[in-house]
């Protein structure tokens, strides 16, 4: 009886471990339209309305916890925010003068018809109804899907509610009829063609290895003129070939340069902090016409 119990227990354990390994292996080698992915999408379309309902029902509790956390954080951040405010004030004055000059120059060059904000890219607003909490996965679940015109690979922008907390947060990974999965820019599989706002440094923006809250601008030239505080925006590479153009429209803000390690060397690392605090995003906007500018 005792041996039978042990044998049964070991058999169940072995069966479950083997099943898991088979699932991982099968899933890892599959394409997006394969059976396991299809099953996942089917189950997500069933689960997402429940998630949405639970999310709404539990919102008061979330708000209460957020309020407590925010109050504690706010006290610590006040000093830093004041210093940043002063710096930004000085910068804003300088930028206003530059903006005036820029407008005049753009008018001269006939470039004044470019989109000024994301409204030109057919944004669809959606509520965040779930998110992964593990450090290794950085995804959001939103309550709009293919029925709202959302399809895979569309860019997603958001605001975290703070003064400068708006910008690109990721792209649509998978879509069901009533919900979508958004892969965030801090995911290891993401890379965004980006440049500094002055256009003097460009490269691919990727998550920093080992620090999921920072990005690095990879493949930038070693003598690129970039400095701490520079805003980083999407490059929006244009091409007549659809497979070569960037997924993201140009000039969508992403973050700002916080540190440059080994500047001027081959191993130079430009570290960028995203504008949007990805943990605080409650609503996003999916840009359903990212190529509006080039069409």
């Amino acid at each position: 009886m005792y041996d039978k119990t042990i044998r049964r227990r070991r058999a169940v354990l072995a069966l479950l471990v083997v099943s898991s390994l088979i699932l991982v292996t099968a899933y890892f080698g599959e394409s997006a339209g394969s059976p396991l992915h299809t099953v996942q999408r089917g189950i997500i379309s069933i689960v997402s309305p429940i998630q949405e309902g639970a999310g709404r029902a539990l919102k008061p509790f979330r708000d209460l916890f957020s309020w407590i956390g925010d109050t504690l954080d706010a006290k610590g951040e006040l000093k830093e925010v004041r210093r940043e405010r002063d710096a930004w004030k000085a910068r804003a004055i300088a930028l206003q003068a530059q903006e005036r000059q820029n407008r005049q120059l753009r008018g001269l060059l006939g470039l004044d018809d470019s989109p000024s904000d994301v409204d030109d890219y057919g944004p669809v607003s959606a509520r965040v109804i779930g998110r992964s909490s593990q450090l290794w996965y950085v995804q959001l679940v939103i309550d709009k899907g293919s029925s709202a015109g959302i399809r895979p690979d569309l860019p997603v922008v958001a605001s975290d509610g703070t003064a400068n907390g708006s910008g690109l947060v990721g792209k649509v990974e998978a879509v069901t009829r009533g919900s979508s999965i958004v892969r965030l820019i801090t995911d290891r599989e993401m890379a965004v063609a980006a440049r500094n706002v002055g256009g003097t440094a460009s490269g691919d923006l990727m998550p920093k290895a080992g620090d999921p809250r920072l990005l690095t601008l990879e493949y930038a030239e070693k003598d690129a003129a970039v400095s701490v505080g520079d805003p980083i925006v999407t490059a929006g590479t244009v091409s007549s070939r659809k497979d070569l153009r960037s997924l993201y429209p140009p000039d969508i803000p992403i973050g700002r340069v916080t540190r440059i390690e080994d500047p001027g060397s081959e191993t130079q690392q430009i570290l960028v902090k995203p504008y949007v605090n990805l943990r605080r995003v409650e609503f996003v906007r999916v840009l359903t016409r990212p190529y509006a500018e080039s069409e």
Partner: protein
Amino acid sequence: MSLTPQALTRLAVLGVLAVILQVAAVSQLTLFGTTADIVPLVVAAVGLLSGSVVGAVFGFGVGLFVDTALFQIMGLSSLVYLVVGYGSGRLRELRDPQAPIVPVIVGAVATAVATIGFGVMNFLLGMNAPVSFLLVRHILATIVLNALLALPLFALVRRWLLPVLPDDPRRRRRRAYTTGGLSPLSRA
């Protein structure tokens, strides 16, 4: 614990509720710069109350649901959570610990196993992120936060599973004192 239809139903409801609650609410609450993860706690509690086989099956099922609901690599969470469920179940079968602090320690260990397990699995699958101080700090903060949540969560899970448990844990404890029979296997 034999898997009667009633027990299966209770376990299924518990698993679905835990995942939905985690994805829709708990993962959005930041405390001490991190978020709690109640899923390994619930899996560990089920293992601790029901034994290794039920714990492993429950962990596998919950992991599969997590992977599906979050569009993750299927089988990865299953593998990690089945280890958590099996491990806590074996602890009950071999030691049957009764101290009030046990759920806290088991919860902390379960969280560590889950978090580090995910890390190891991701490294094996080709993730090239080295372990950084920030990552270690995050993991430690999550373990501490989960340890704080473990005791009330364990009580809730026990209350929910009580009608389908083979023995009321308090009754089992009394018998352990009087007869010296600590392991359920010794009664087999």
